[in-house]
């Protein structure tokens, strides 16, 4: 028996060792290229690690390029999206978790199935709507769009978290004279803080990584996000790989940092629905 266990553990290590290499290789390649000179990035055969380490690609992108602007735009858009969508989702999640009302099942069904609407179905009409109200090519237009896209998932996730808080807590607060709103802010808000963190990260990752909506709803450089800026570095005739990879490293850092810092919350939030109802 212990022999079998030993065998299965070594297979597990083998799988995980392979996965380490597989998962990390693109990161290494990205980092290594970003530290190369332009000539070296065109070398045939390529060099695995730069012969002449240089930060010139980073300085080109961060000092002479528009990357600080892209970065600021992405941060504003993704952060606002995450906060709005979590707040509105929290209200809705509370409504669904604590009240019984007519049509509740139908409304929950609508929330769930609205996740199935593909973005490309919505961008065209939404583009026309935004143009009509003067929000085309603004960060506000993007924030409203992203908030709504993440809203169904946020609502669902937060409803799940609120369901785990005993109703007796609410009732006790209300017996003590708290209004519904007061109960919501002073009892529910602090108790499900971890759930809110999970929802915030999830919405942030989604908004930070999007390309389709940014591409369809903005044109000017002043509101471009990191993902959009990166695709604009790719021209038809020539790609300056070190700069593109330096931009990618910079663009990948915030999501990675958030994930590394708060991964327990994120994983808990993502997997809750899959394990128990």
């Amino acid at each position, binding site marked *: 028996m212990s022999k079998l266990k030993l065998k299965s553990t070594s297979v597990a290590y083998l799988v995980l060792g392979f996965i380490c290499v597989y998962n990390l290789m693109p990161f290494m390649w990205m980092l290594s290229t970003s530290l190369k000179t332009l000539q070296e990035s065109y070398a*045939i055969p*390529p060099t695995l690690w730069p012969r002449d380490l240089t930060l010139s690609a980073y300085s080109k992108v961060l000092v002479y390029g528009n990357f600080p602007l892209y970065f600021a735009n992405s941060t504003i858009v993704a952060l606002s999206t995450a906060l709005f969508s979590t707040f509105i989702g929290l209200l809705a999640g509370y409504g669904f978790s604590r009240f019984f009302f007519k049509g509740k099942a139908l409304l*929950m069904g609508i929330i769930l199935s609205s996740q199935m609407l593909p973005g*490309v179905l919505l961008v065209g009409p939404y583009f026309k709507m935004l143009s009509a109200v003067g929000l085309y090519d603004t960060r506000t237009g993007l924030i409203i769009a992203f908030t709504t896209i993440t809203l169904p998932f946020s609502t669902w996730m937060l409803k799940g978290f609120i369901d785990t808080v005993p109703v007796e807590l609410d009732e006790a607060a209300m017996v003590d004279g708290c209004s519904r709103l007061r109960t919501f802010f002073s009892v529910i808000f602090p108790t499900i803080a971890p759930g809110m963190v999970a929802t915030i990260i999830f919405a942030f990752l989604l908004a930070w990584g999007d390309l*389709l909506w940014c591409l369809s709803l903005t044109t000017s450089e002043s509101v471009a996000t990191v993902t959009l800026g990166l695709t604009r570095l790719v021209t038809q005739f020539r790609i300056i790989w070190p700069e593109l990879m330096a931009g990618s490293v910079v663009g990948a850092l915030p999501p990675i940092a958030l994930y590394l810092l708060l991964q327990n919350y994120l994983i808990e939030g993502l997997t809750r629905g899959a394990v128990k109802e």
Partner: protein
Amino acid sequence: MKFFKIKPCHQGYLFILPCFIMLFLVLGFPALMAVVNSFTPIWAKKFTFTFDNYVKLMQDPVFWNSFRVSLLFVGGTVILHFLIGLVVALALNSQIRARKFFRVLALLPWTVPDVISGLVWRYMYNPTQGIINYLLMKSGLVDTYIEWLASPSLAMPSVILADVWRGYPFVMVILLAGLQAIPRQLYEAAEVDGASAIQSFWYITIPSLTRAIVVALALDTIWQFRRFGLIYTMTQGGPGHTTEIFSMLVYKQYFKFFNFEYASCIAVFMAIILFVVSLPYLKLIVMGSKGE
């Protein structure tokens, strides 16, 4: 002040109101507009109800090609995500050291925006300057430069493989959570009864994992159907139309050819497919929440 005079049973509506206003304005109304557009012929100045676009769609070889390509892309990626995700989840669930370290590392690619993963893989696939051909040639497996993304037959498999890198970790995390929820006693009891490892896998692991598998497959399918940034940065649908999945085709129709009506028509078709595919998931979740 008025808020507190509303009957308690109606307060629930107030809490969900902001959410539904947003959903209606940004999802509901545009979706409705897309449906209306899809029935409006391109020549019409205002709304006229015809099936012109749908008739055109059914006869359009580019659309059917995209249909096939989308199925290939979604099918290929979802199956690979699932298989690799399951193997890695099983490995992470076994008695190993440094499990936390491996878990953190395994989910890492998922956090990277698909635009960035597309760009990195595009450079890795570069025939002469990329690392993949370099490693293959150095190890003696091939002796010519392979055109991974420029060859019509290799472009789709290459894009799928690049997507797998970023996509399998999410499925893995869901399956791992499912595995961790299975009580150890079940396996111990089976062991006492003399069940083999394969038998306990088939009769304990897989049945207990059903819910996690349905959720993971459904969410993954929905997301893969909507995948855009990866294809946009790697191939833009080319060479020819060989990697032109639905989202790419609709995007081109909207913003390259400005065929709003025709684009809406394709998108509506795509939405219907998505809805049908996700029915088992919807059923599971809604049934689950009714049981509470």
